[in-house]
């Protein structure tokens, strides 16, 4: 079984996986990072979205072995250094952008990817970008509001966006 090395949330990690081990299973079972969730088996719900080398990826739809040497960021890596909520996370709390919390890690990671590509998205652009993230609780209303608020906050204080 292959050994793989990743930089996970800025830290070097390694582990032994089967070829068939999905990234999400390596994160959850191999590394104990259970913040990334599995909500479907067809690559559609987006609860498992993480960033690989700076772009969003569905971690249930990629093999860990494919990513040897990659930089991976998960929801566990999204808070500020002092442990306080990052801008997007804080916006989700402020605007009630989550209820049961299960889809939330994927929503936050997708929102982060969006705001990296487009710092001032319209409501329509946000909704379009969330096409691969399903939420059953919020009706999306407050998720959209949260992302709008995060964008505004980042644009108001560009340092926070770093």
């Amino acid at each position, binding site marked *: 079984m292959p050994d793989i090395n990743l930089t996970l949330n800025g830290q070097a990690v390694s582990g032994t996986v089967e070829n068939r081990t999905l990234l999400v299973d390596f994160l959850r079972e191999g590394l104990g990072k259970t913040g990334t969730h599995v909500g479907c088996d067809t690559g559609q719900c987006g609860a498992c979205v993480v960033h690989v080398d700076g772009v969003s990826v569905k971690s249930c739809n990629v093999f860990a072995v494919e990513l040897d040497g990659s930089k991976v960021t*998960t929801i566990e890596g999204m808070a500020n250094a002092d442990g306080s909520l990052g801008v997007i996370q804080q916006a989700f709390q402020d605007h009630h952008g989550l209820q049961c919390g299960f889809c939330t890690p994927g929503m936050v990671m997708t929102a982060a990817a969006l705001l990296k590509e487009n710092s001032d998205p319209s409501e329509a652009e946000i909704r379009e970008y969330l096409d691969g*993230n399903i939420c059953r609780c919020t009706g999306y209303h407050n998720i959209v509001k949260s992302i709008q608020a995060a964008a505004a906050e980042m644009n108001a204080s560009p340092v926070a966006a770093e």
Partner: protein
Amino acid sequence: MPKDSGIGASSKRREDVRFLTGKGKYTADISVKDQTFAAFARSSVAHGRINSIDIAAAEAMPGVLAVLTGEDFAEVGGNPAGWLITSRDGEPMKEPKRSPLAIGKVRHVGDAYAAVIAETAAQARDAVEALDADIEELDAIVDMSEAIENSDNLVHDEIGTNLCYDWGWIEDNKAAVDAAFESAPHVTSLELVNNRLSPNAMEPRVSIGDYDASTGDYTLHTTSQNPHVTRLLIGAFVMGIPENKLTVIAPDVGGGFGSKIYHYGEEAVVLAASKKINRPVKWVCDRSEAFVTDAHGRDHVTKIELATDKEGNFLAVRTETQANMGAYLSNFATVTPTFLHGTLMAGPYKTPHVYVNVKAVFTNTVPVDAYRGAGRPEATYSLERVIDKCARELGIDQLEIRRKNFIQPDQFPYTTPVALVYDTGDYDATLDKVAEIGDLAGFAARREASEAKGKLRGLGISTWIEACGIAPSALVGQLGARVGLFDAATVRVNATGSLAVMTGAHSHGQGHETVFAQVVAEKLGIAEEQIEIVHGDTSKIPFGMGSYGSRSLAVCGSAIVRATEKIIAKATKIAAHMMEADAADVVFENGNFTVAGTDKSKSFGDVALCAYVPHNFPHEELEPGLEESAFYDPANFTYPAGAYACEVEVDPDTGEVDVVGFAAADDFGNVINPMVVNGQVHGGVGQGIGQALMECVVHDGNGQPLTGSYMDYAMPRANDVPSYVVDHSCQTPCTHNPLGVKGCGEAGAIGSPPAVVNAVIDALQSGGINVTHVDMPVSPSRVWNAIQAAK
């Protein structure tokens, strides 16, 4: 000015921090030392006779520890139906036994007939494929009418019929209702389908069974909305485990919407398997498995008739419904189409005569049970659709026909012809409010703008009511419930004045940890941060019937208030002792106990400390400590109501429907956390739009599901729904619970589907297309088909 804490404040949710940082603890996140994994062998046919199951090859597979089949459960009890429904002829409903693993026959695609326990999940799945089961396929029973007529082919041979019950509500009304129809100047009738839905909480079900041979204790971690109910069902009915030997823990749960109320066979299997191999057993459902195992919702076929005079005054309502039970009776399946549906068929209207008939039918499909709203969406949809149609036939405005039939504020308490007693309400107020927040006055201009783009614009109205706050025991007992429906709470004040509240509610997205703390903080005049809310663990909380039926705040929250009141009463005695005053003279206000007319005062914290340092207590009169429990059983259901307005644009070339506006004005009585309440409505409306336009579980004629994944079951995404305009400022507080609250969890899912469909019909009619009904989901192809048929 809005408050910043306590009742009425939009306190930010404390639970969010762990969810937002990946620190939530969902059942799948739990790994128990030495755990093993279960995988289930599931039927690939809808109906089949199990001739044999050869497990030898599977047992020999790498890592396999045990293989269980239905025979392992032949001696234990079945998973029961929670409500006994009596048919019109006085006969009790038919109740076939439901084993954790199928015995003798498989009855739906996905029905589990064996389980493999192995060292890893992959090994368990590999071994499932090595099972050699001889299952002889039988003709599937799918269509409800055929199921009723065909007594030769039965889902359950031992009951001799596919009809579970034939229920009339109220049977004594029938003659008067029929007479009213005979003489009515106008009758509108409508046949409609309330589409079968898959609840799709984003967290799939997970169960971990852990048997400790040294103590005989079982622990079940499971995705449940009501761990005590699960414990009761497993303990008293299915496995015969004494409740003191079974702990059920439902940690963070990723949504439920009804689907996690019920006890499922997998829970019993992981417990039994754990005992068998003396190691913990974990089962993680995947989404494909969830589609064929989680209880579905809705699935009614209904004919509704509305009798009116020429002015649109309602004279009588009559319905005939077939309700699909699926292959087995899930725990709440029998009550959903009856007492959660038939009793609501008066709506918010003063219709004098109502009669409801429901036939519940077994089919070779996944069991159907309560899903967000549960029966009340079905009632509301039927009623609001037929009213819409009636208004068109009579040429009466959609708002006007509702207004002239509303129960008036001075008529409360109002006893409906279907046996509910509405305590309070103001239905004109919410209808006025939705007209305002939805800017109905501007609709004509918006319609013109849509038409200029080649789109048809429609406006749909729905005015809904529900009976929720599911309780009271006395009433539900009369209606056939086999359990009480009260709730319980313990308030435990620590010596330093902080406190823990153990509640029988279970939060799986509703924000109880925040909202309940607001209630207690308000009552005790202390900071919310000093209050911890504990839920989801039968070893920690006194008892509880869990969260569903918009009952958490109205029932469980009321129990918390009652326990808090007892705390105040006890603390008052302690304070009186501390201040050497008569308890009758001690006043509790803003967190301080004061002797009236003096400057003597003790803070809540001082009193708490004294309770645990009782150096000079008169022990005959005053016990040390400060902890109180309360069991609360209300006098009635609660009756939230509201008015919804939906605007759609229909593309006449493709049939595509775009929801372009949605306004919801609700009366939830008093509101604890407006932010959370709005979120509940958003989510409910989102699900309602999903039902109306997108979602449907479909089976082919052989009972094979055609919607087994998100590739074919259409879940609403962000782009499928609009921003919602919501309001809950119309408030007629509940008259019989201490918080004056009514419940808001199901509202959106109840009121929205008819508003959406009514809007589509309005849009089509505005384009001169004479379509009077399209069944849900109103997909583009269905709309296009309807347009073609109308040409």
